[in-house]
């Protein structure tokens, strides 16, 4: 476990160096394009975390183990932070490319709605008192809300004209990214996923210890 931690640290340092020194700049955007190595992985992890939270919600509804619900909350919290960071980096990019921080571009709207879904999830959780009921309601809500995510993330930006840079790795148009950029991009994606996994594992260890002290989650 410790070895993974240090390897991840070294990997991310390499990614940072690569993002600023090794990868070339994109045509027309200049050095601004370097944000792609941070913005996209953050957004990707935000959606991934929500997906894992939803899987745990399904698991909870099937098996009734409160641990699944706890893990769903943990992933939702981490996902919220990553989505917030993705929104902020996107707004910064928007400011320096198009002049305004926010203009309700379809992709900006969809990441904003993802934030709202996370927010609604936590508000719903805080409104229900009973633990079992809270877990059930939150699980059902996260599954229902997840249904609108593919519509938001994939369909709306394709249907509406958007200023957002085209997903350059969309499979219809083939790989159009410069190979060096692609290497750093992929490395950054793996690195950020690794960071997410590491934070999640720390959180799980905390949950286990807390369960041991406070009693079993199902009986305590």
């Amino acid at each position, binding site marked *: 476990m410790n070895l993974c931690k240090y390897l991840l640290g070294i990997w991310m340092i390499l990614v940072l160096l690569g993002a600023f020194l090794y990868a070339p700049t994109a045509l027309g955007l200049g050095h601004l394009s370097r944000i792609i190595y941070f913005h996209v992985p953050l957004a990707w992890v935000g959606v991934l975390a929500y997906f894992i939270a939803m899987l745990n919600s399904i698991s909870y*509804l099937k098996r009734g183990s409160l641990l699944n619900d706890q893990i769903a909350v943990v992933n939702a919290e981490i996902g919220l932070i990553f989505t917030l960071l993705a929104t902020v980096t996107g707004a910064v990019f928007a400011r320096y490319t198009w002049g305004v921080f926010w203009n309700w571009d379809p992709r900006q*709207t969809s990441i904003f709605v993802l934030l709202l879904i996370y927010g609604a999830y936590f508000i*719903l959780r805080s*409104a229900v008192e009973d633990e079992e009921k809270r877990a059930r309601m939150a699980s059902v*809500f996260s599954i229902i809300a997840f249904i*609108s995510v593919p519509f938001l993330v994939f369909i709306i930006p394709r249907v509406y004209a958007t200023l957002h840079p085209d997903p350059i790795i969309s499979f219809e148009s083939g790989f159009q990214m410069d190979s060096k950029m692609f290497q750093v991009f992929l490395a950054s994606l793996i690195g950020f996923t690794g960071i997410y996994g590491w934070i999640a594992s720390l959180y799980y260890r905390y949950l286990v210890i807390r369960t041991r002290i406070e009693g079993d989650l199902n009986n305590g």
Partner: protein
Amino acid sequence: MVSKSYGWVDAVLALIKKDLIDECRTRFAFTSIILFAMTTLVMVSFSTGAFVLDSGLHAAFLWIIIFFSSMTALARSFIKEEEQGTARILKISTTPEVVFIAKLMFNLVMLLGLLVVLYPLYLVLMNPPAANNNLLVMLFLILGSSCLAGTTTILAAIVSQAGAKHTLLPIIAFPVLLPVLLTAIRGTGLALVGNFLNVVLPDLIFLFSFLVIIVTASLLLFPFVWED
């Protein structure tokens, strides 16, 4: 047991009839939804009446009125059960799926009732562009309202179990409904300038597929919300 001699269709119809009779006696939900819509419409018409508005603006106003008036009334179907104490009897008298379909149909009827009153009044008060394709606009209104009803039925059931009941539904429903609202507004705007079916077909398909998916998912998940 009496319920075994009913088919599920009979059970659904019986539940809808019960809700409609209850609604006719108190007329609370229907009048509140109509009054809310009228108030908003009057405000909009009063302030913008002097201007000729873009079709996109017309569509936006129409859907704002529909969305917010429906939020006030759609939650009532389940919260009323909890407040009047009839929820427990309902839970043991029939299967969750029957309850879900009945409440969904009831919500749909209420929204359609709202549209019947709202759309003609909107045409009269707001003067949208004369070239509008009425049939297409009505199709969008009905389809969009069906998506609204389909999503808010299960969310209202969730909210009825939570603490801060009435205010919670718009907060929870809005993120889930945003794709529907964006598409419906865009489609209605296009239909209002007189475009034909081929132009707005992607939006219609979007709304229809969303409706099918959300109703299916809600039907599968409703037992978890409804049963203790």
